[in-house]
């Protein structure tokens, strides 16, 4: 186990961040979940069942692709961890299969999820269909508009998609609605949280289910780089699940870790601590503590908070966090499509945007980027943005 990214203990702390700031009704549920996860993760049968599903159903391991034309364009060596090739089109399936198996083991019959871009919602609806469970997904009304294909996919998979109508009607509000549902239905329902955030044990559990990304990538890079590690490992950060997954494989190496946030949702970038959605972390808020609405071209990163372990990695200086504008993201999106024939999710285009901007700093280095999802879902939105 990693020395820097270990077990956060009974109180769920990553340094000064994390914890379990939830209504009293949910405390026993979180405690029960923590106990169930500890037991499942220590049970070879559970681990084996999950590994089999990840291989035979989700298509793991995902490859690492050496990007010759992009490397030439940027002036340094680029490797992509291809989470976009997983079943359902993103890394989200790793966490969802783990949590759905756990829910079943706990005797729950109904999954609740929040979703931003819809990738986690689609993954949860998929797992629910696979395991014969009921599924309800909360999605901000604004996001339902900009990601209508994913809404339709969730419906096809048998899930009910409920619009979150309060506040900014985006991911933050979908989390509020999911938590309200969970408070009311805690006895038969399992809250399948989609990012490395929320009350303990979620940040730790979600990271653990995504560690497979880092473990695979570490081995694959060692093969490609003759036993070496990349100089830089980078990923986009909203709540931060794909980033925490790939960082976990390199946190104990010399690789520099760089998370990339949208400028309008840069919780780590602003470095103001706060408490919302169950944990203490960095949080975009006004001077009296009202949570601010994030603003990003990408629904999946349109979130004012960030997972607590990222706040910790930033606070101790082990990872650094950059932010990029929507315009830079649109450039990054097209860059990968043109040079490598891969259309990235808008979320991942944030990391590409930073990689493009930082080409002088990165000259001569080897950079591993986690391509956490494919961009099919964003094509319609990009048609409008690019005026085609």
């Amino acid at each position, binding site marked *: 186990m990693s020395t820097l990214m270990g077990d956060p203990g009974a109180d769920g702390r990553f340094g000064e961040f994390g914890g379990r700031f*939830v209504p009293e009704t949910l405390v026993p549920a979180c405690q029960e979940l923590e106990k169930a996860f500890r037991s499942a993760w220590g049970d070879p049968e559970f681990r084996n069942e999950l590994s089999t599903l990840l291989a035979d159903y989700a298509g793991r391991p995902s490859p690492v692709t050496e990007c010759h034309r992009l490397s030439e364009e940027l002036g340094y060596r680029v490797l992509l961890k291809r989470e976009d090739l997983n079943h359902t089109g993103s890394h989200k399936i790793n966490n969802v299969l783990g949590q759905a198996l756990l829910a079943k083991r706990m005797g729950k019959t109904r999954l609740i999820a929040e979703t931003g871009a819809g990738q986690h919602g689609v993954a949860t609806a998929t797992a629910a269909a696979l395991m014969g469970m009921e599924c309800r997904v909360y999605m901000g009304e604004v996001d339902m508009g900009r990601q209508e294909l994913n809404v339709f996919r969730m419906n096809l998979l048998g899930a009910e998609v409920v619009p979150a109508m309060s*506040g900014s009607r985006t991911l933050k509000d979908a989390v509020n609605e999911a938590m309200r549902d969970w408070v*009311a239905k*805690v006895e038969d329902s399992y809250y399948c949280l989609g990012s490395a955030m929320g009350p303990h044990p979620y940040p730790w559990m979600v990271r653990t289910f995504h560690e497979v990304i880092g473990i695979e990538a570490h081995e694959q890079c060692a093969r490609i780089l003759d036993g070496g590690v990349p100089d830089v490992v980078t990923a986009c950060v909203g709540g931060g699940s794909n980033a925490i997954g790939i960082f976990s494989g390199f946190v104990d190496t010399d690789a520099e870790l760089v998370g990339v946030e949208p400028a309008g949702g840069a919780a780590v970038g602003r470095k103001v601590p706060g408490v919302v*959605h169950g944990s203490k972390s960095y949080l975009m*808020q006004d*001077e*009296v*503590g009202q949570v601010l609405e994030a603003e990003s071209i990408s629904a999946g990163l349109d979130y004012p908070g960030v997972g607590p372990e990222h706040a910790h990695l930033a606070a101790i200086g082990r990872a650094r966090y950059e932010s990029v504008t929507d315009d830079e993201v649109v450039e990054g999106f097209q860059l990968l499509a043109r040079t490598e024939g891969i259309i990235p999710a808008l979320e991942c285009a944030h990391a590409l945007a930073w990689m493009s901007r930082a080409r002088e700093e990165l000259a001569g280095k080897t950079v591993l980027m986690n391509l956490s999802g494919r961009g099919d879902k964003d094509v319609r939105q990009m048609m409008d943005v690019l005026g085609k």
Partner: protein
Amino acid sequence: MSSVIGKFEASLRARRESGGKILVPYITGGLGDDWIETLHAVADAGADGIEIGIPFSDPVMDGPTIQEANDKALAGGATPQSILSAIRDSDIEVPLAVMTYYNIAFRAGDTRFATDLAEAGISGCILPDLPLEETGSWAEAADTAGIETILLAAPTAPDERLPLICERSRGFVYGVGLLGITGVRESLAASAMDIAGRLKAVTDMPVLIGVGVGTPAQAVEVSTVADGVVVGSAIVNRMLSGAGPDGVGELVAEFRSALDDASS
């Protein structure tokens, strides 16, 4: 564990010792221009203590009524400071508690927020997203400032958890009447009677039930076991409907007389 009995708890105990049932209405701070008059009307209608909501942008424990009230108050420019300063100038005799979410206290700083409450004449504080295990730094600051930290106890709590909550709670123990968020329901949930009985069995502290207590009849029903009730959404509904301070006062008076009739 012994602690000094604060003003909020003293008022509740006085009602209980006189053989009556306790009524704590909830109103949303900063909702409309006349909310301080509403506060007076609620006090005059026979409240034993009043809970004042400080609106928060992401109230996960609250249903549609209180969410709407929150949004309207925030849109009208309500801030923790504006609410506290209006309370400070209000000369209300009935003890007051605020209910808000922890980020509001955390952002100000635990000590600063507790001191601000005390200076505004507030006796108690309810932070529904700060469960027992996370109360540490806040509760210490609140104790020092003389603010009673009221903890919630939910139907999901195993038996061994309830005495721990009662021991750390000040003012009263807030029994959550049902599995769910705040709001008026057609009938009282069985869980309300159950949690009231389980709490009464382990504590001498006043036990009030809130969440899902929306009519005088439901208040009377649950008070056959509990020491009294917290009534929120029903009253905020009345505020939102534009009934004005008098209309809200009338509703509180209905709860008061129903509870008085039942205990006489």
